[in-house]
């Protein structure tokens, strides 16, 4: 999804209001933006905390900043800069992490993003943008360009095949129907596990509808509660630990209320993964089933 992201970011920058900051990575990905807007592109070097502070500084002067990095570097490594400088000041910084879940399979535990939702969903102003296909990616970028605010864009490392372009509208907490099925029993995914969700559906939940939620976060909780309560059963699927993840977030949304919806969550096993392999191998062994 990286290349499409850069292509769209370049396209959306006609008014030159967008800045791109990287921490010494993104080789052969970020060039289209950099070549077109050299004075809007910075390499902060290997210094994530400084990078996030600079992003907040630029954003505080009426600009939108996109901080591009992989896995944990743009999240955990500079968590306090995100908390204090970006989220507290409610600044239009979009934090991009490439390699959702076990996307960087062989690179090992240091490069897996398995706890990032837990961190990012703890910030009150943060919108989590977790597109599951190219149409959703384009839609979430359009959303954030129209509604600049603190946001976290979780990108699949794998390039998705160009599916037929379809304009979709996304909003925080809104769900998008991917496969029509049972009206009361659904599978709900976020992020880059749509194909996995489809195969789980065929195997175990053949009649269920399949939905995705590409934008969510603390501010959308009430809205999500009202959506979830309409269903009898919701199966959540994600490439993240259960603790602090999407499924547990959905449960939090309907907590302390009289809602009877049954929520079942499928996720990546809550444990340190001590072996490596391809993304497919790791997902098969440790991922949602």
């Amino acid at each position: 999804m990286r290349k499409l992201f850069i292509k769209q970011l370049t396209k959306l920058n006609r008014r030159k209001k967008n800045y791109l900051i990287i921490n010494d990575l993104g080789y052969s990905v970020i060039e289209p933006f950099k070549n077109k807007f050299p004075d809007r592109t910075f390499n902060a070097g290997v210094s994530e905390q400084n990078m996030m502070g600079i992003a907040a500084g630029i954003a505080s002067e009426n600009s939108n900043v996109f901080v591009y990095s992989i896995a944990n570097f743009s999240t955990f490594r500079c968590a306090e800069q995100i908390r204090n400088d970006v989220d507290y000041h409610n600044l239009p910084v979009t934090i991009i992490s490439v390699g959702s879940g076990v996307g960087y399979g062989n690179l090992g535990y240091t490069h897996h993003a398995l706890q990032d939702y837990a961190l990012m969903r703890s910030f009150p102003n943060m919108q989590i943008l977790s597109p599951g296909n190219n149409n959703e990616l384009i839609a979430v970028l359009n959303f954030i360009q129209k509604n600049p605010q603190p946001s976290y864009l979780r990108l699949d490392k794998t390039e998705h095949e160009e599916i037929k372009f379809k304009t979709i509208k996304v909003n925080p907490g809104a769900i998008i129907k991917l496969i029509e099925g049972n009206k009361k029993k659904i599978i709900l995914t976020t992020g880059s596990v749509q194909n996995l969700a489809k195969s789980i559906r065929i195997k175990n939940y053949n009649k269920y509808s399949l939905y995705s939620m590409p934008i969510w976060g603390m501010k959308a909780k009430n809205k999500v509660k009202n959506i979830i309560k309409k269903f009898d059963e919701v199966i959540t699927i994600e490439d993240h630990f259960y603790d602090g993840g999407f499924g547990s977030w959905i449960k939090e949304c309907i907590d302390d209320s009289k809602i009877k919806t049954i929520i079942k969550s499928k996720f990546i096993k809550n444990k340190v993964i001590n072996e490596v392999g391809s993304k497919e191998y790791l997902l098969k062994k440790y991922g949602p089933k």
Partner: protein
Amino acid sequence: MNKFTKDIRINILKLTYKAKSSHIGSCLSIVEILAVLYNKILKRKDRFILSKGHAALALYCTLYQKKYISLKTLNSFGSNKTILMNHVSHKVNGVEFSTGSLGHGLPVAIGKAIKFKINKEKNKVYVLMSDGEINEGTTWEGLLFASHHKLDNLNIIIDYNKLQSMDFVKKVINIEPLKSKFLSFGCNVKVINGHNITAINNALIRSAKNKPNVIIANTVKGKGVSFMENNNLWHYKNPNLEDLKRSLLEINKKYA
């Protein structure tokens, strides 16, 4: 200017007493720096970030003197419902950025400085840091970046009062030789007396080309009150009524 700094010190003392808050020593060491910035240096579009956010009260008192906030707001310090957080808050009129966790102000200031450079705007960015912040990795990460991008519109002032939270700086983590550290990072460096109005002013009005400017301001923690000066107890302790009376007498005499 004497009256200006005297009134700030008096308000810092009174409000710290009233609020039973900490960091009185850290506030008293930056009074002259704030007075020069707000009376002589800062122009309309310039930016100032207090990176040592625990000295918030010194800035609130300065902002009151400059009519950014009312006496009523200032006097709310330490009470419930106040917006005057003990670590500086951007919700207060005139405050550019909230800080409190050390090492955050410089990267944000760099972001602003580089934005002004790109837009070819002449504004300058000033950031006031503590000597404790020299311990932070972001200080040195930021200096590498600022120097690489030749941010000569960036002015970094170090409140070098030589005392950090637990002990003297040289006993906690020695940061000397400080001047040569900044020089080796490609900065233009000046070392001044941080309580001398003329010295501060001269250092701030003349800046180098193509390099970030660093001013090492030698200051005294607790400046103006003899029993608070150079005594780390006043990083934490708030004055009792007796301490307050004694300190106000001293300030009235010294800055008459």
